[in-house]
């Protein structure tokens, strides 16, 4: 994850206060021991799961911000964090929102 722009900033406390509740409502959980968010998705079958992953992948490339994820058949586990700033950034929030949208059929 290389960005040509200025160094990506970690989320400020205010932003976290504002945004994290929303994410929590959407079943994103904060990872213990690191500044990251995690969510698990379960689909009907592998095809749907992988289709979802494809959409996310395309978006990730577009954003130049990639998730950490794991997939087994119809299950996809995603962890979002920004390596450059060692924690959550706006990109994670944006991607999380997109992921949620993409997971809905």
């Amino acid at each position, binding site marked *: 994850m290389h960005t040509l722009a200025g160094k990506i900033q970690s989320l400020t406390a205010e932003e976290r206060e504002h945004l994290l509740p929303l994410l929590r409502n959407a079943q994103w959980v904060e990872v213990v021991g690191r500044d990251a968010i995690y969510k698990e998705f379960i689909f009907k079958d592998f095809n749907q799961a992988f*289709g979802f992953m494809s959409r996310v992948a395309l978006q990730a490339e577009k954003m130049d911000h990639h998730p950490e994820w794991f997939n087994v058949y119809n299950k996809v586990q995603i962890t979002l964090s920004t390596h450059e700033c060692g924690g959550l950034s706006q990109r994670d929030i944006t991607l999380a929102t997109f992921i949620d949208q993409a997971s809905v059929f």
Partner: protein
Amino acid sequence: MDRGERRGSTAPGRLSALQQQLVWALLGSGLSRDVLVQAAGELERERGVAGGDVADKVGGESSEEGDEESPPPIYKELEQLPPEEAARQKAEVDQLLQEDPWHVAKLVKSYMQQHNLPQREVVESTGLNQSHLSQHLNKGTPMKNQKRAALYTWYVRRQAEINQQFTNAGRGLLMGEESGEDVRKGRRNRFKWGPASQQILFQAYERQKNPSKEEREGLVEECNRAECLQRGVSPSQLAGLGSNLVTEVRVYNWFANRRKEEAFRHKLALDVPFNSQSASSSSHTLSTSPTHDMKYSQQVTSEGLASSGGHHGDRSVGERLTVSPVQLEPSHTLLETHHKPASGGGPLPPVSTLTALHGVSASPAAPQGLIMASLPSVMSLGEPSLLIGLTSTQPQTVPVINNVGGGFTTLQPISFQQQLHAPHQQPITQQFPGHVGPSSFMATMAQLPCHMYSKPELSPYTPSSLLSQAMVITDNSSLGTLTSLTAVKQILSTDAEDQSEPPIQESSLHLSSSPPVPVSSESLELYPASQPVDDQPPHLLTSSPTDMDPYIPAQMVSTAQ
């Protein structure tokens, strides 16, 4: 991972569920369908096709799972699968070669029309000459067997390709579509509207000139359906339409162009008062273009050229010709005038009107045997239905004769461009009375009054060359049987022999008062050297009269201008 081995059920259009997902993902990522399709083709080209459609060619069942299941070759042959398909196609080509060439030509042509395939594609892929190809398909011009083989090979191959496209239409990825086209042209063929679609669009245009997006999309569906039907295919097999697939963009552009066209026509009609005397009025194809360059057509009578019919250039003596007033100029000028936009007009007219104009203006420029006058106030030939005996192909040429006695009410000044390459030929210019009546201008061979030729000024020249530049023009009343050219020839030669230098004067160069138009080097001009035959002082054309060792026998006598 047991669950992973379950096969995907057959998805609509033979796309597996995952394939569908992936395609959907791609489409959702901002790819347009067209781009996706195109990219698929490109990739396939680079890497070869791996997948089920190859199995089709192999003849085996196409498995949804593609590579894993059936043993199709990973790389699809660029053109076809070598053993079976190639043999089959070759056999078909051979069979076609046995048939009657004209019959097969009709077959090929109709297939191309049905699928709206451009000739250019055939030319590029076979190396045939386009003119030859066109003539062979349209007119039956013979084609050697080897070349026909190339043509039929393309035909058979293309047919297979299209059939494949249609059968694969259900698949999301239109594979193979590019294979036939990429190598040839850089990309796919240029889109072309089919007649069925155009009909639909015109009807819609009459209802509403500016359809909304929904309406356009509706038209897209309708047109594609019609195109598929025209090709004898189920309307859902859109992929087979290939580059001629109708999309919203095409429809949008079509409407935009039609609107522009109409505005342009409207504008032309407003700006240029349509001169009934202009040639273009007689040019039936020039519906949109009034002749603006009136400077050349002041004395022009609009003729019922259109009504008179087409080419008369090769008619033998004795036929009536109707000549429409035409601006006789070097062809480029003629083209130019026709193309010139209306006075206030700015840029070029919309494309399609140009096409129409081209068709018209091009014709007078290069008709066989058309002799173009280069005089300014000359009739412009709207069509090459001009002058008998003026074709260079005709050995006998008709002297231009103005029947003095007959009254020249319909005659107009004309000068001709001789199409022969005889050395000192000069254009015959003939001036006709300016008051051209509404009656058509007739050029025919008429009996030449002998006296007209007994001019002492005739210089000795070979009659043939003289004659070659002559045109007989008479008015209606004097139409009649034409004397044989030989008769004229004799007369002329006799005269010629008797004569010494002075050029023929009454030969008729009675030019109108308007400034003479520069004549091309090949044009023939007849200058009345000195005394006019009638009372009219001849005007000299730009070409110097001294050059006129005029062997032009034909005396063109013009009456009052």
